[in-house]
């Protein structure tokens, strides 16, 4: 009997080769993004400083590394890179979940209005002053906004477990536009100073400038919860791809699984938007590329989308910082430059279909 052959071997190969390769890519992206910038730092120095920070005291001798370089590496560039990795990873996983949930390849947080809902939540905390009161209000409201948007799109666009491309996109566009309009309205109505207004515009456009360790800690709890939830229902997501009735007949509590996946996808989107604003297409490009190489099984695809999304956003941010120094191009512009053509290509190829490849 060929019990070792077949899909299991495909999944295991993907897990044992694909995931380590993606981890190496992520490590390389982190080092590159810290080394390259207005002040160039040798990559060996970057690795030494990071190692000294992570490993116990005294293991790494930092002799010869200037104080200034250490500050640039750990206090300025590292938090930005970590926020990029967390937001990218979260969007990668959330996109993968939404594509599985909607059984539709074009589902992605920013494309179907979920990120805009999260941004509205973030804007509310700023306009109301809650964001200044306590640090957790921002990710909490971003999550609430994302969840409300996702539940609405799902309710409107899905009939009998299927979500046609047209209704999904139209519902998403309408909702995204509405959320953005309300955000703009709140900004124009509230008597806020210019600095706050700038902060708000930042969410609506997306970016990673001036990220600090506070932002890292802010998005970490919802992100961890979201990833745990995604992992919890990994196999169920595979089964849902076969149709609701088949999934139910194989032991999936369809309604409950769907609610949990909706909630975790919203949590991940909210966490990403809370610290980086609306950044489009990450959850579209990354899962699609990986699915082509690793196959559709979520056991491999979800962790791969997390690693891949993290690397992708770090590298996009690196481009945003280095194309035209000292000016930064907004990160959302870079991801849209890659994402929008890719989206159009998928739309052209998949129109009317539900195929995930």
């Amino acid at each position, binding site marked *: *009997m*060929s*019990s*070792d*052959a*077949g*899909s*299991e071997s*495909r*999944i295991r190969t993907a897990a044992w080769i694909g995931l380590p390769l993606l981890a190496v890519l992520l490590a390389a992206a982190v080092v590159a993004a810290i080394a390259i910038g207005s002040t160039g730092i040798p990559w060996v120095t970057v690795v030494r400083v990071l190692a000294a920070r992570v490993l116990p005291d005294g293991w790494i001798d930092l002799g010869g590394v200037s104080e200034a370089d250490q500050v640039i590496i750990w206090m300025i560039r590292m938090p930005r890179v970590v926020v990029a990795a967390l937001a990218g990873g979260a969007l990668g996983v959330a996109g993968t979940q939404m594509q599985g949930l909607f059984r539709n390849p074009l589902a992605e947080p920013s494309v179907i209005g979920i990120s805009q809902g999260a941004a509205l939540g973030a804007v509310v905390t700023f306009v109301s002053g809650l964001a200044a009161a306590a640090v957790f209000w921002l990710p909490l409201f971003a999550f609430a906004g994302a969840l409300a948007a996702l539940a609405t799109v799902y309710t409107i666009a899905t009939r009998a477990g299927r979500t046609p491309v047209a209704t999904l996109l139209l519902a998403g566009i309408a909702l995204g536009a509405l959320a953005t309009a309300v955000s703009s309205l709140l900004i124009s109505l509230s008597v806020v100073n210019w600095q706050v207004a700038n902060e708000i515009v930042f969410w609506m456009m997306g970016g990673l400038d001036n990220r600090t360790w506070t932002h890292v800690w802010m998005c970490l709890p919802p992100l961890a919860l979201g990833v745990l939830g995604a*992992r*919890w229902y990994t*196999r*169920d997501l*595979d*089964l849902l*791809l*076969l*149709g609701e*009735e*088949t999934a*139910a*007949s*194989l*032991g*999936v*509590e369809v309604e409950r699984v769907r609610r949990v996946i909706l909630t975790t996808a919203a949590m991940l989107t909210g966490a990403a938007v809370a610290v980086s604003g609306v950044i489009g297409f990450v959850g579209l490009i990354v899962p699609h590329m990986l699915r082509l190489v690793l*196959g*559709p*099984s979520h*056991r491999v695809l979800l962790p791969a989308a997390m690693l891949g999304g993290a690397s992708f956003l770090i590298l996009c941010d690196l481009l945003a910082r280095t194309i035209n120094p000292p000016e930064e191009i907004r990160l959302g512009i870079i991801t849209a430059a890659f994402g929008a053509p890719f989206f159009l290509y998928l739309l052209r190829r998949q129109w009317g*279909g*539900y*195929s*995930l*490849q």
Partner: protein
Amino acid sequence: MSLTLDGAGLRIGPRHLVRDVSLEVAPARITALVGPNGAGKSTVLRLLAGLWRPTSGRAAIEGADLAHLPRRRLARRISFVPQETRIDIPFTVQELVMMGRHPHLGRFDAPGPADDEAVAGALARADVTHLADRLVTELSGGERRRAVIARSLATGSNVILLDEPTANLDIDHVIETLTLLRSLAASGATIAIALHDLNAVARWADVVAVLDTGRLQACGPPAEVLDDDLVASVFGVQVERITAADGSPTLIFHRQPR
């Protein structure tokens, strides 16, 4: 294992999809549900599978009420194959069949040797071992149907319910699918199928249950049940019988004179 419906009915709003159906689906047999469109075949099948709960009466497996069994336990005992088995996700056949192990696996478990063995056994019984590494999106209709049946077998359940398993299949794939079900029944499986092709029923089923407007009209061996009067009253057609070379009865239908 036998499935029973006991005075089962399903009502959605003012509409009765089925009413007061009592039926036993016995092991080692193919039980076919027939009837015109809208007669309630698919509904009865879903009540038997525990996918839908009857609003009156009850559905049971070996006397145990399906309503009291959790979904995972149910999945280990009864498997259901929907009419539409078109799969547009490029899983391999082995990946697809491994999904039948879902009700046996814990949340964070990866499939182990016992699951590999169950999958290998299921692939062999459904005669798709040679297709294990192929993508389901590239299979013929008949191959895909067998792969889906293999997934049912991998659950370890010995009860398989299929909704129109031969719909949209070429004639050789129809024979391929029904031959497989025949051999599974011969090895003790409990099989129930909703089928609209009365000739296939006459040839392949051991028991036929005739439904009309949500009620059970007759139940028994096809040769006894499918008589001219019943077919005329339920389907509104006249029957001419001829005997095939192998002795099996073949029905030809004519419009009833008005």
